[in-house]
């Protein structure tokens, strides 16, 4: 038995810092760790003592890729603690802004991070030499998403206009007209994207996933609902702490989450599609059918198609919101702080994002808890890798390492929430 240790570039095209360690002996994997060494920033600790109005701006800084998700989960958790529910046009504007983030984040992942894997390039920009029109279409889509967020939020990264109770300022109907124009073009580009990625050759792999996602009676849930699990369990946001428990593992600064005692469930696009696919906008549903997606997709290499379908959905739904929008009388509803606990859950582009705050009588945060999608998916990504690598241990090391990186990128891990040398140690 020879021991081999190779260092292969990095776990690139993911957001954050991490690495992967695989050990195998005599044809059996003996150890596998997705190692997250993103420096801890201690958000849950530094939020203590802050005013109830501050978590949306502070927690946005957890992730520059999906700040809207953090703002929305934070707002809803605090509003729940204060006994307020935001409804009507203010909720519609939140949905619209969130659709913008889905479009931007998914377009970034599909075109700049994920597609290069299928087409054999180091980066999205490197694709430009041979696939310039495709890259330009991806950038145009991404830009459309960013414009939605910036129109409502002031800027695409760390928007300034979101507040507990609603917004600082709401747009007049006329201000949304140029966005509708952009979104109609984006919808066509999104449909073309589904067709494009549906043609990518994906390894024939299927995993026995246990999915978790928000579920809403009328919507392909993004902003609110109950929590649904593919085994039939369903629970309310307030019961999250009963079902989901985070634990620390030595090799990672991201915590691992357990669902009802078992580790390794999946959140994100595949989970949402499996649990809520029937509620997709009809245009997105037909695009999924035309792309040959089954009602439940268990091949993570096909998640790129599901994300493209979700962009179609986000564009179509954003257009629907704009069409029905009537400017609300007030930009926000007052949220008077009171002592209590509130839970807020929404669907970040990468999956379910949970916030909990306990406020004291003075309206200050006494305790904060945040469960980001990547800490929920980390154990499942390790299981994907085991399943994938075990039968392929005979492959040349470079090929195996590349496949591992792809398997990680399939889940669009956003490791800032909690990966850059891929260390593949093979002893076989």
């Amino acid at each position, binding site marked *: 038995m020879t021991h081999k240790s190779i260092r292969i*570039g*990095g*776990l*690139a*095209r*993911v*957001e*954050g*810092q991490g690495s992967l360690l695989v050990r195998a002996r005599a044809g059996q994997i003996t150890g596998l760790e997705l190692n997250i060494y*993103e*420096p*801890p*920033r*201690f*958000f849950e*600790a*530094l939020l*203590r003592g*802050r*005013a109830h109005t501050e978590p949306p701006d*502070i927690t946005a*800084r957890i*992730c*520059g*890729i999906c*700040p809207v998700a953090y703002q929305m989960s934070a707002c809803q958790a605090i509003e729940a603690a204060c006994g307020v529910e935001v409804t009507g046009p203010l909720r519609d504007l939140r949905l619209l802004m969130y659709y913008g983030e889905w479009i931007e984040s998914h377009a*970034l992942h599909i075109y700049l*991070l994920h597609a290069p894997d299928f087409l054999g390039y*180091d*980066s*999205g*920009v*490197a694709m*430009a*030499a041979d696939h310039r029109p495709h890259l*330009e279409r991806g*950038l*145009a889509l*991404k*830009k459309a998403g*960013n414009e939605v967020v910036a129109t409502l939020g*002031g*800027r*695409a*990264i*760390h928007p*300034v*206009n979101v*507040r507990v109770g609603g*917004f*600082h*300022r709401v747009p007049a109907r006329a201000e949304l007209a140029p966005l509708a124009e952009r979104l109609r073009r984006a919808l066509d580009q999104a449909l073309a994207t589904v067709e494009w990625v549906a043609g990518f050759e994906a390894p024939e792999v299927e995993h026995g996933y246990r999915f978790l996602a928000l579920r809403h009676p009328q919507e392909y849930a993004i902003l609110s609902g109950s929590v649904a699990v593919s085994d039939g369990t369903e629970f309310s946001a307030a019961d999250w702490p009963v079902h989901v428990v985070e*634990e*620390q593992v*030595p090799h990672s*600064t991201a*915590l691992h989450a357990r669902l009802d005692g078992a580790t390794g469930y999946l959140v994100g696009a595949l989970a949402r599609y499996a649990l809520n696919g029937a509620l997709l906008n009809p245009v997105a549903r037909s695009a999924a059918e035309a792309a040959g997606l089954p009602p439940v997709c268990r091949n993570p290499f096909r998640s790129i198609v599901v994300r493209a379908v979700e962009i179609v959905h986000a564009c179509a739904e954003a257009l629907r919101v704009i069409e029905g929008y009537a400017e609300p009388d007030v*930009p926000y509803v007052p949220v008077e702080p009171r002592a209590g606990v509130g839970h807020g859950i929404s669907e970040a582009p990468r999956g379910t994002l949970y916030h909990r705050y306990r406020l004291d009588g003075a309206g200050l945060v006494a305790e904060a808890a945040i469960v980001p999608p990547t800490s929920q998916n980390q154990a499942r990504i390790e299981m994907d890798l085991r399943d994938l690598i075990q039968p392929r241990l005979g492959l040349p090391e470079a090929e195996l390492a590349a496949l591992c990186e792809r398997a990680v990128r399939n889940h669009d891990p956003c490791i*800032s929430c909690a990966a*850059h040398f891929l260390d593949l140690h093979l002893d076989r």
Partner: protein
Amino acid sequence: MAGPASRRPKLAVWKFASCDGCQLTLLDCEDELPAVAGAVDIAHFTEASSADGPGPYDLSLVEGSITTPDDLRRIQHVRRVSKRLVTIGACATAGGIQALRDFADVREYASVVYARPEYVATLARSTPISAHVPVDFELRGCPIDKRQLLEVIAAFLAGRRPCVPAHSVCVECKARGNVCVLVAHGTPCLGPVTQAGCGALCPAFNRGCYGCFGPMESPNARALNARLRELGMSTPELVRIYRTFNATEEPFRQAAEQAEQSEEADG
């Protein structure tokens, strides 16, 4: 990234403790990205590319603050392989939101978040890049502004200083034609003491500036604090407004301390 890379200046993007938002700003230059990629060889940019071109690099953009023992060593390496080093954003320039630990006990922080804090390697303070190595230019903002980022890249390619104003948000606010939220609405606003660059976004949305670009060149926080107190802000509120994304920048640190002391004097 393809082609005769050796002729074009080499650009590297590095990440330390951060949210990735400032480096994402480069990818958010959707219209300009193909041109930038044509003008420079993006040799090291892990978030966007698996390619890892060797140094030295003509221009390194550094995101994030220094918070771990490993990163203390890594920043020295980044400096050695970089002809020019520019920090991008509040974390790299001022320590970022994670510098709130500087006002607390980091072990206590770790014990709040982690059951086994001993597994977590972390430093007591979150420090800007300039605390460790010479920095050629600091671009501010949480996040940075993409027009300013393009200006910085263009300036370094041309061998000149970037044209980035050091005056206050108030100047941008007037240029934009905003109503002054502080004067007209009595909304607490850090615009008078905060560096321009965002385009006076918050006042344009009927909100007071919250200082995410850090202190302007000659801030008069004492005068502003007096006004903010007249508007009803309490001492803890004043301390919190300065202790967010640029808490350890000296003028903001002093402004918070001055608020605390003046209360003691009054009391």
